[in-house]
């Protein structure tokens, strides 16, 4: 679309708006405007009351049903009150098979083309670990016949769900925030695509839809959460949300279930008996770039592999 036609459509918009004021245009402005007024004036997720939220859920469900020809379950499940989520990854066990990466894409409706993947598995030289992990030296494009390679180790990286999250601090519209259970979420309808958050994130966890995402109807996951795996549009930022549509219903995230070696652990940091707390109590754990003070809730640990 050229900038000229953009300007034209903007003029058109104000024209219609002016006319609408006189003739109760709210009744049928959609056709004239080329977009839906309800969508345009949709409130920020956290400002909506229950009725407004319900209306949005119904409108979205209808939109998705039309686009994909399927029945959708659209949710806005709130956080559990007694829960702070934590994730553990046993770096001594990960074999770099990328099952988690692709399970995540399928679960969370990422664009297939251009390809967006929230989990990035970095391959490192085993020897280099002696000098500490240099993230810049990690290779995400490795593709040997088989993994694990003897002289390598693997480190999956996605959103760390930081407690002091630089990404949410810089968002000019408040479209991304850290919710009470610790998950950093995005209201895709309020994201203006400025990508400040991407610049602020020290982990490269955020991804931008440069193009209209491609998501084949037969591959779409119809079980969606508005702040999670709801299909995105061009011009918004997205990232891992610890499968908010699953974890806020007590389920494990999809990547955890896909892991063939049981390296991924998930649970409630406030429950001393949870898997993640047991790990923190008995294993050596670390977080990435702890020196930045972001206070991630994603912990790497050494489970003590015998190899």
């Amino acid at each position, binding site marked *: 679309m050229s*900038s000229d036609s*953009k300007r034209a459509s903007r003029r058109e918009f104000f024209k219609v708006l002016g006319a609408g004021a006189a003739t109760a245009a709210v009744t049928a402005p959609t056709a004239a405007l080329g977009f839906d007024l309800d969508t345009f004036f949709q409130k920020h997720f956290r400002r909506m009351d229950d009725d407004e939220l319900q209306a949005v859920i119904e409108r979205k469900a209808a939109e998705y049903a039309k686009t994909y020809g399927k029945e959708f379950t659209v949710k806005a499940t709130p956080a*559990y009150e007694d*829960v702070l989520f934590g994730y553990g990854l*046993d770096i001594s066990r990960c*074999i*770099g*098979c*990328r*099952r988690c*990466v*692709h399970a995540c894409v399928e679960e969370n409706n990422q664009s297939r083309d*251009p*390809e967006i*993947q929230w989990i*990035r598995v970095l391959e490192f030289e085993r020897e280099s670990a002696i000098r500490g992990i240099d993230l810049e030296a990690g290779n*995400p*494009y*490795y*593709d*040997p*016949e*088989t*993994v*694990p390679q003897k002289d390598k180790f693997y480190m999956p990286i996605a959103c760390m769900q930081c407690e002091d999250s630089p990404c949410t601090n810089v968002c000019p519209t408040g479209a991304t925030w850290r919710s009470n259970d610790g998950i950093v979420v995005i209201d895709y309808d309020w994201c203006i695509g400025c990508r400040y958050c991407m610049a602020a994130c020290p982990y490269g966890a955020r991804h931008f839809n*440069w*193009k209209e995402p491609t998501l084949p109807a037969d591959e779409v996951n119809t079980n969606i959460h508005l702040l999670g795996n709801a299909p995105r549009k061009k011009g918004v930022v997205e990232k891992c949300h610890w499968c908010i549509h699953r*974890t806020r219903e*007590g*389920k*494990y995230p999809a990547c955890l*279930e896909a*892991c*063939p*070696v*049981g390296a991924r*652990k*998930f*649970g*409630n940091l406030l429950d001393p008996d*949870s*898997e993640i707390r*047991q*790990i923190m109590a*008995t*294993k050596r754990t670390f977080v990435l770039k702890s020196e930045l003070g972001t206070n991630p809730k994603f912990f790497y640990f050494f*489970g*003590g592999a015998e*190899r």
Partner: protein
Amino acid sequence: METPVPESPDGEPPGGYTPPPHQPLIWGLLGTVALLVVAGTTMRLAQNPDAPRPANVLRALPDDGKATLADEPEMDDEYDPCSDCHEDEETNFTVREMDEEHDELEFKHGTTWCLDCHDIEDRDYLHLAGGTKVDFDDTSTLCGQCHGAKIPDWKAGIHGKRTGHWRGDKTYQPCISCHDPHVPGFEPVKPEAPPERPTLIGAEDHHAPEAAEVDAPEKGAGDE
């Protein structure tokens, strides 16, 4: 620390060695007795394969009605039950390469061999080092006798895989769901596809290797 030495009854001068009034002897005796008892029990176990079986180490799941232990993988029909073939065979105790029967089985499990785990008397059972029989659907108990350090980790959810709910019903995988008992180490697998390298969107073919490998917006997208 100095302790006052009591004057001995036969009038020896103080300062001479007096054995302390206790105990090494008694402890020694007690220790020997204890050792004998333990050894005796072990030997009895060894001689009595029908002794009460130990509870499955993995079955002691949290008692909240939400934990389930997944079924252990089924044995290959060809071998099940073992006694079909082994009933009439004479046991060859020699540790050896299996090049006639079971030669298709890969075996990479330390220095162990068949009869360390498979029961000799009753082929449809496994057995612990002491001779106690173990059912084929209870293999984790057997694994635990050597890999005991893994059991507490497994129970705490640190080692192994669980599926289902972090809060609610969850399924625990027993050892041999993931580890082939004959080759317990993980075999290398083919990795899934690597990510595409970022390219200039709008380039004719963004898969082409000559396309600039930069993560850049469409030219002019920022102009307005």
